[in-house]
């Protein structure tokens, strides 16, 4: 237990309304968007970097683990306090500090919602490019921690390509600034190194991001297929023809029906798969490219190729895509989202394998994914109330990820390793690699207090630690 005296010290920093410790409140902070759970002992809501640093210093003094939390939309358990301790919520650090259009930058606090950056830049004709499906809720701090992606990262790149500077609090409470509004600063790229470190090296408090000019023309098309093979083939054929859309998303038949029931976005319920294809840029270029795309889709067996005729139609198609997880929730109260990546040419065989896995475990698996960069999101439906079902879902997920590794891919494209995939790390990386990561973790966080139990597999993480608050030993 965190002693009452420590709670009082923390309350003195963040104010009496800046922390929660009643069981009914703590319950709300025991989960994120993944399937795991663990309850914190205290949730703290700092308002400034100085308050974050002060809380971290107290935690360090008393050996209490600290887990950063944005909106809790993460899909790998990144915000779950496995070792108990403090959840440090960035909910009150939600100010956009600067929209600097002449320099194409925004400076924001870690708790700012992803979409709010784009909304603030929109009046000037600019936006923030990485667009995770949860962008209406997820925060930039969480995006940096997980190196989040999204449909449009196919053309624009992921979070790390758009983050140029950070302010972060280290495990001992030191505040450090890395990078800046400028590019190419000399020295090691600490901004890039911290991005995607899943809250295990530092707690990010402020972020400097790139703003991108909005395109002149956007065209969104829907290609409808009677076989997933044809859709998969289209993806590699587009690449071969040197066409790189800004987004290239695939939804399979199972997914289409769930999405259409929930959103009425105009997706065909009888198709085997659709591709949602978006092109943008200069009017002249887009008009020519969309015709090339149409040719490729039809040549690969699309039965229909539709172009959204208005902004409303386009938004509706994207609403269907981005609310897909919500649509799944209507059908199945429990689901498990995977995030494997395969080389683009391996999409069709990987989909076949996923079908076999579904059959083997007797589970329904629907697919929705970023086809353009080979980032799959098989969604495994299960019923946690049925004994053994969650275990079956986990086993099916693991088989799919092992297949991705064997196909030359990765276990996570944008969700992060977190808790759920950490035991797969040795299948992807050598001992030498894991030991190097562990050494760096120890360098930044010798007492293993920042988001313990994430990213590294058991035995390769921090050494066994005596957890003073829980009064027991934990092995990470």
């Amino acid at each position, binding site marked *: 237990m965190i002693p009452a005296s420590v709670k009082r010290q923390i309350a003195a920093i963040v104010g009496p309304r800046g922390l929660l410790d009643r069981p009914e409140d703590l319950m709300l902070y025991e989960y994120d968007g993944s399937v795991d759970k663990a309850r914190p002992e205290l949730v703290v809501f700092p308002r400034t970097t100085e308050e974050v640093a002060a809380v971290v210093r107290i935690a360090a003094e008393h050996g209490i683990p600290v887990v950063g939390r944005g909106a809790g939309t993460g899909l790998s358990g990144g915000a779950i306090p496995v070792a108990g301790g403090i959840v440090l919520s960035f909910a009150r650090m939600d100010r956009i500090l600067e929209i600097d259009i*002449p*320099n*194409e930058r925004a400076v924001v606090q870690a708790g700012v919602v992803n979409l709010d950056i784009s909304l603030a830049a929109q009046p000037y*004709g600019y936006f923030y490019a990485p667009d995770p499906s949860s962008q209406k809720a997820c925060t930039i701090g969480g995006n940096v921690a997980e*190196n989040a992606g999204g449909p449009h*990262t196919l053309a624009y790149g992921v979070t790390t*390509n758009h983050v140029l500077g950070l302010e972060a609090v*280290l495990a001992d409470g030191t505040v*450090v*600034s*890395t990078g800046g509004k*400028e*590019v*190419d*600063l*000399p*020295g*090691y*790229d*600490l901004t890039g*190194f911290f991005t*995607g*470190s899943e809250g295990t090296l530092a707690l990010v408090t402020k972020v400097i991001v790139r703003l991108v*000019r909005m395109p002149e023309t956007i065209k969104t098309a829907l290609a409808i297929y009677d076989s997933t093979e044809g859709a998969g083939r289209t993806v590699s054929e587009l*690449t*071969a023809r*040197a066409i*790189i859309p800004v987004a290239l998303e695939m939804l399979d038949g199972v997914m289409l029906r769930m999405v259409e029931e929930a959103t009425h976005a105009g997706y065909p319920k009888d198709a085997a798969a659709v591709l949602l294809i978006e092109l943008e*840029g*200069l009017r*002249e*270029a887009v008009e*020519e490219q969309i015709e090339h795309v149409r040719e490729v889709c039809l040549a690969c067996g699309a039965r229909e190729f539709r172009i959204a005729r208005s902004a409303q139609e386009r938004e509706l198609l994207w609403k269907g895509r981005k609310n897909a997880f919500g649509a799944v929730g209507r059908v199945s109260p429990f689901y498990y989202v995977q995030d494997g*990546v395969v*080389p*683009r*040419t391996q999409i069709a065989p990987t989909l076949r394998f996923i079908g076999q896995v579904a059959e083997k475990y007797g589970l329904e698996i629907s697919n929705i994914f*970023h086809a353009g*960069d*080979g980032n799959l999101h098989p969604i495994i439906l299960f019923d946690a109330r049925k004994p053994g079902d969650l275990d079956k879902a986990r086993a099916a997920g693991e088989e799919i990820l092992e297949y991705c590794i064997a196909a*030359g*891919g*990765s*276990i*996570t494209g*944008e*969700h992060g*390793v977190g808790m759920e995939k950490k035991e797969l*790390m040795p299948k992807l*990386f*050598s001992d*030498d*690699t894991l*030991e*190097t*990561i562990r*050494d*760096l973790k120890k*360098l930044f966080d010798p007492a293993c207090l920042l988001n313990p139990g994430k*990213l590294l597999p058991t035995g390769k993480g921090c050494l066994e630690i005596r957890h003073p608050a829980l009064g027991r030993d934990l092995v990470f």
Partner: protein
Amino acid sequence: MGIAYPVPEMQIVQPQTVEQLREALVEAQRSGRRITLGGAFSKRRMGGPVAPSEVIISTASLDRVLQYEPRDLTLSVEAGMPYAELSRLLDQHGQMLPLDPPFAEAATIGGVLAANTSGPRRRLYGTARDLVIGMKFVTLQGRLVESGGMVVKNVAGLDLAKLLIGSFGTLAVIAVANFKVLPKPPGTRTFLRNFASHREALEARDRLLASPLQPAAVDLLNPAAARLVGYDGWLLAVEAVGNAAALARYGREFPSDFTLESGEEAQFWRNVQNFTPCFLERNPQAAVVRVCCTLSGIAEVANSTEAPLVIRAGNGVCYAHFSSADEAAAWIRPDWKAVIEFAPEERKGELELWPSPGEDLAVMRRIKQNFDPDGLLNPGRLYGRI
């Protein structure tokens, strides 16, 4: 390929395999010998002084293509692969790795990454930190460490490649690099426009960047630099990419004094890309300063010297070319984020090459300590500070 070793009479190790590289590093660590590390050593004058060392290790013989699947738009090569050779291979498949570094004819991929060199088209395509999707490097402890992989989206593990890019060989030795590559655009055209002042040129740049046109390169050369590539005045050089209709639109909306295509266009950009190497070759005592600033901060830099300036006007990176190291050192203002990138070897020891590092230098030094506790790997090469 000729390799000009810094000190030719010293013991030179040029491993043929990653395993041999590992052995060489372990051996050096065991015997406490300091290492001068490089690829083709084309950028010897870049960065901090090449410190006295007991052994030279070059990765130039690790030069194989490990994997290239054009339909996946990914490529894996060993670090010693010459950048020029790699570009030719990609070109045969209608693809490219548009880093456009200086010294492109001699440099190895490992050297390009270690020095984080880049070129004009970074406005559209980014730099090494955007195009590297995976890396393998060898540490002094003999570990073969992996970062990322062979897919374009991957967040498994820590992004260790970011630490190695721009590290000047001070942490570990890059053995393999994986890239995402790009299809070549259907067409390119370059528009050159003269201005009487930097202010007018930057106003034109602002209008261009705020317009729907999104060029690949936006470079600004001051009169002294423009003269060296055969033009006058403040020269704004814009490379457009796209189909015929898009290129025609640039012609309409970005009025220019000269339009360059095909051979002439390629020659112009080669001159810009090689500006620094050519300047250094002609001026043995020269020093080159890189100032990293915001887009609006360019004006102050542009206005502060008549020495040849090549400016990535769409990114905020300025390269100033001085005929002596003293001029270079005197020019840098204390509030600038600047380094003396190139200086004569014999002057490096006494110059402050990286005058105003940020407070994060302390964190960088801890990382250096973690990888190289005895300070054996390219000591001082990171602009004299690490």
